[in-house]
């Protein structure tokens, strides 16, 4: 670590102080609250809190739902990104703007919007309920839908950026050599933007893991079915702030662990 940074310093020469100071401030601003969590954590009672059934249940549910939501986002989001980057669509700018709406929408509003469309009396949901007796709210599937709704824009934007930056000459070459469009997409386009896809998927997964507002509004809160870690944290704050800190730390450790392992595996070198 220090050897590498020393080498870099030798190469780059002196860094402008005017940038260093705000950079350090920004870093402190992001890290000090996390340190605060560590300082205030109830270390003595930590083990018994950690191995309670509720924590395990909420953590399992969180990981499962975030992973399923990321899967859905990949299956649906990559084609959408491809459409935005490659297809000659009228009003492409407008579509791109609309795709990013869930990014800026308060998640609670997203949850209400999902209820109004997919709820038991929703625009679409009412038919599913009347014909098949199924309703998404208050189910684990509802959690996945809420997380996917909020997280998909991250993936789409990331993949679309990678596609636009990619060199299309390889695709043209594959096409002239007789590859079908689907084959070209699978064997040429997708591998060339894989780092962008992975980066987007990681962002998407992290966003889904931390999702609170849309989840609690659309899927409700029921232990083992829809109570993900962020919901458990929020409710623990009402009665037992120490428990909330422990839950937050668990979520923090798990997400950092997953992200670091992905980085090791996929993101070596400049992406």
């Amino acid at each position, binding site marked *: 670590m220090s050897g590498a940074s020393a080498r870099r310093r030798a190469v780059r020469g002196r860094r402008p102080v005017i940038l260093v*100071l705000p950079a*350090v*401030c920004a870093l*402190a601003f992001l890290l*000090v609250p996390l340190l605060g969590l560590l300082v205030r954590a109830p270390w003595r009672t930590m083990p018994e809190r950690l191995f309670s059934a509720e924590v395990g249940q909420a953590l399992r549910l969180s990981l499962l739902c975030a992973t399923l939501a990321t899967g859905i986002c990949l299956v649906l989001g990559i084609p959408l990104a491809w459409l935005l980057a490659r297809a000659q669509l009228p009003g492409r700018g407008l579509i791109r703007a609309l795709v990013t709406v869930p990014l800026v929408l308060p998640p609670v509003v997203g949850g*209400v919007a999902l*209820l*109004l469309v997919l*709820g*038991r*009396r929703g625009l679409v949901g009412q038919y599913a309920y009347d014909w098949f007796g199924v*309703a998404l*709210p*208050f189910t684990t599937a509802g959690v996945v839908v809420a997380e996917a709704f909020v997280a998909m824009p991250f993936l789409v934007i990331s993949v679309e950026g990678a596609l636009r930056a990619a060199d299309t000459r390889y695709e043209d070459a594959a096409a002239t050599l007789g590859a079908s469009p689907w084959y070209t997409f699978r064997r040429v386009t997708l591998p060339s933007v894989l780092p962008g896809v992975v980066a987007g998927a990681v962002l998407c997964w992290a966003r889904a893991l931390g999702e609170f507002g849309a989840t*609690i*509004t659309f*899927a*409700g*809160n*029921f*232990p083992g079915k*829809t109570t993900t870690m962020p*919901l458990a944290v*929020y*409710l*623990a*704050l*009402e*009665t037992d*702030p120490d428990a909330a800190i422990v839950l937050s730390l668990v979520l923090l450790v798990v997400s950092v662990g997953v992200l670091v392992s992905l980085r090791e595996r996929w993101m070596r070198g400049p992406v």
Partner: protein
Amino acid sequence: MKTIRTLALTAAALTVTAGLVGCSSDDNSSKPAATGQISGTVTVFAAASLTDTFNQLGHDFEAAHPGVKVVFSYGGSSALAQQINQGAPADVFASAAPANMKQVVDTGEITAPQPTFVSNRLEIAVPKGNPGHISGLADFGKAGSRTALCAEQVPCGAAAKQVFQIAGITPQPVTREQDVKAALTKVTLDEVDAALVYRTDVQAAGDKVEGIDFPESAKAINTYPIAPLAKAPNAAAAAAFVDFIKGDQAKKVFAAAGFDTP
């Protein structure tokens, strides 16, 4: 690391300054001030369920005391209690449960008595027309019914737990909402057949929901205490506001909203 220390010191200095400013009011007379003696801004931290009534009473109070401005901060009682304990510059705290008031009394932020000014009882809220044909508390224990309750961590959930214990019913909700308004929203959107909320919430929802009374509700009355803060920046106005909330004019407003008044 040095920068972090500097930042921490700056933050600490700011906090201390804010604390000193907050403490600079030395007028701790808690006797009701006569009209015209009080001025400035009075900051009231109040439970979210008081939003409608307090907004109205705030206007009435301002009309009775020209030159006084009432500023409200509404939220969950536990969140408000934590904010006050972290040094938020409030003058008055009105909590939806004695437990949250106690959190503030325990840290010495409130030393004055905390009288109950209203109480609230549970009621079953059903969507307009009662499509789920809910008749009483027993419907919450039926498997296959779609009902919403508050989480047991929040006051309305604790009260619900109490009435179910008394009635000997094991509830089977599809969701335990984070606050009473969220539970009510699920009813107004017709996503559940019934929810257990407060009588005032049913009233506030207008004709979108209907309320069903049940006898056990009298066994889980929720009381609201109010008190001025020990370090209130505007102590005179805080005392006057608390007296106003306990007065007859306020009682009329509370009763109209569905609260019980002592």
